[in-house]
């Protein structure tokens, strides 16, 4: 898979490629978020846990929406492949080459920490102003989706309704998604395609420069709307909630909440199965976790390729990964580092 994306989408084939990369981007954010989330022991950092959990659920929604976008235009989402997940730490797919004045950044698997939050903030960085966005490669996920949006418009100009030639049977319908704000819907025309892209971008970086995503219809405890992902991570980073009226370029001014960076499981960054001896019991658990992960990718792939009902199988694996990951984070590594094992999120399909 090519490392750098073209800066413009020239054909429907290009659009499909971009969307496949989008699928990888959305998916690639989840393991880092999960590592931060699972490294927080039960009962600690309630607010932070809740926040990260909600973001993960919405990333799942984005995956489903991107899969629907791909299927809408007759593409084939690929998830079950050794080339699908990224090898942490690594740049997000399509973000290997950032514009000149942008610091490159790697996304890795880390425990809950201020540094991890900084990475998350970078991932979800909003696009405030974009004087020459059309020239260089995208620096933010928002710019990346801008290209996709434009790609849809261009392709639509050429193909009209026949752009949306994919079978509706391949679409993931609303009853399959729950547990987060927003909803999944079928993508069958330009209107729904644009709505899907808006939902993804707004949940990630906010709507038109606002802290709040303005789309979801979901409410927080107090009845406020949910801030976009960037701002939610910033709440954790600063230990303070946003409130209505807060501006995107100011720190949050709502209620303070406790964030403890110590006391989390001390996971060694970017664990890999190969770091453990082949016959060791920890390696066995590492392998099992990777296999569950791979099985999950398989279930998703199947669901996006004509069998949406197989998402149920994926649900089972998502829960299973959690318990396996948390167990790994409690197992000391066989060195004197004082760190623990952790989920590697590697593709591993035993023959």
């Amino acid at each position: 898979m090519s490392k750098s994306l073209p800066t413009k989408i020239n054909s429907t084939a290009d659009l499909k490629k971009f969307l496949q990369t989008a699928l990888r981007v959305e998916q690639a954010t989840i393991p880092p978020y999960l590592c931060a989330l699972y490294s927080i022991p039960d009962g600690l950092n309630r607010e932070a846990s809740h926040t990260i959990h909600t973001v993960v659920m919405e990333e799942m929604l984005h995956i489903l929406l991107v899969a629907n976008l791909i299927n809408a235009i007759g593409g084939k989402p690929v998830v079950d492949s050794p080339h699908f997940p990224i090898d942490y730490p690594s740049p997000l797919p399509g973000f290997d080459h950032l514009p000149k004045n942008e610091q490159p950044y790697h996304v890795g698997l880390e425990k809950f920490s201020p540094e991890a939050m900084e990475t998350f903030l970078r991932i979800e960085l909003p696009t405030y102003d974009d004087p020459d966005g059309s020239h260089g490669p995208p620096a933010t996920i928002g710019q990346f989706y801008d290209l996709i949006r434009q790609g849809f418009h261009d392709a639509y100009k050429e193909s009209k309704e026949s752009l949306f030639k994919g079978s509706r049977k391949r679409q993931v319908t609303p009853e399959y998604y729950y547990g987060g704000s927003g909803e999944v819907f079928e993508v069958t025309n330009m209107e729904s395609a644009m709505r899907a892209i808006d939902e993804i971008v707004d949940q990630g970086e906010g709507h038109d420069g606002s802290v709040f995503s303005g789309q979801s219809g979901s409410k927080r405890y107090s009845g406020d709307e949910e801030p976009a992902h960037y701002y939610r991570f910033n709440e954790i980073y600063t230990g303070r909630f946003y409130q209505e009226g807060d501006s995107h370029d100011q720190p949050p001014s709502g209620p303070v909440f406790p964030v403890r960076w110590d006391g989390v499981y001390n996971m060694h960054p970017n664990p890999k199965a190969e770091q453990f001896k082949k016959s060791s019991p920890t390696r066995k658990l590492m392998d099992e976790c990777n296999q569950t992960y791979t099985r999950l990718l398989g279930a998703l792939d199947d669901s996006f390729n004509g069998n949406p009902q197989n998402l149920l199988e994926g649900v089972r694996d998502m829960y299973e990964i959690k318990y396996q990951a948390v167990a790994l984070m409690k197992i000391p590594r066989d060195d004197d580092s004082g760190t623990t094992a952790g989920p590697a999120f590697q593709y591993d399909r035993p023959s």
Partner: protein
Amino acid sequence: MSKRYDSVDDFVELSSELTGFSVAELEGTGLAESHFTEVRELVGERIFGRLLITWDKIRNESKSSKARQTGIHKEIFGSEWGDLLGPIALNIVRLWYLGNWFQMPREWRHKYGAAANDQTRVVSAEAYREGLVWDAICAYPTAAKQPGFGSWAFPPEDPYEKKAATSRTTKTRARKKKST
């Protein structure tokens, strides 16, 4: 060599042999320390030490898991120490599997003395949630670690085809090597 037989590692290795869960699996519950402390406090350091010395002997004299099992049955349950050590070993298994401490048998309490908190009870909510029994039977503790919507519609896993061969031992050996 003056090794003290009171390390968490020794306890976890013995627990691994008793429960059929690997050292890594036991560590993965996050309860190695607290179960160790719990048992030591309840039966007293000297008796606990006796149990771990006995385990060390079994470990040193056995080459295979089968031999260790035989050793456990012989040295912990069958020897002159049987009525002292056997009930403790059983309680260790119950603790790991169920998260419960069971009051030591009456005769044991009379003969060796009873600790004040030697009461049948759930040791902690976490010990309940991490009880090994659920994993052993491929199920989930009631009101915790839920498996997700619809997961029950699939046939249960059958892990023993794969798992039986590889349960524990290797890490024990690795550690042994290091300590000698």
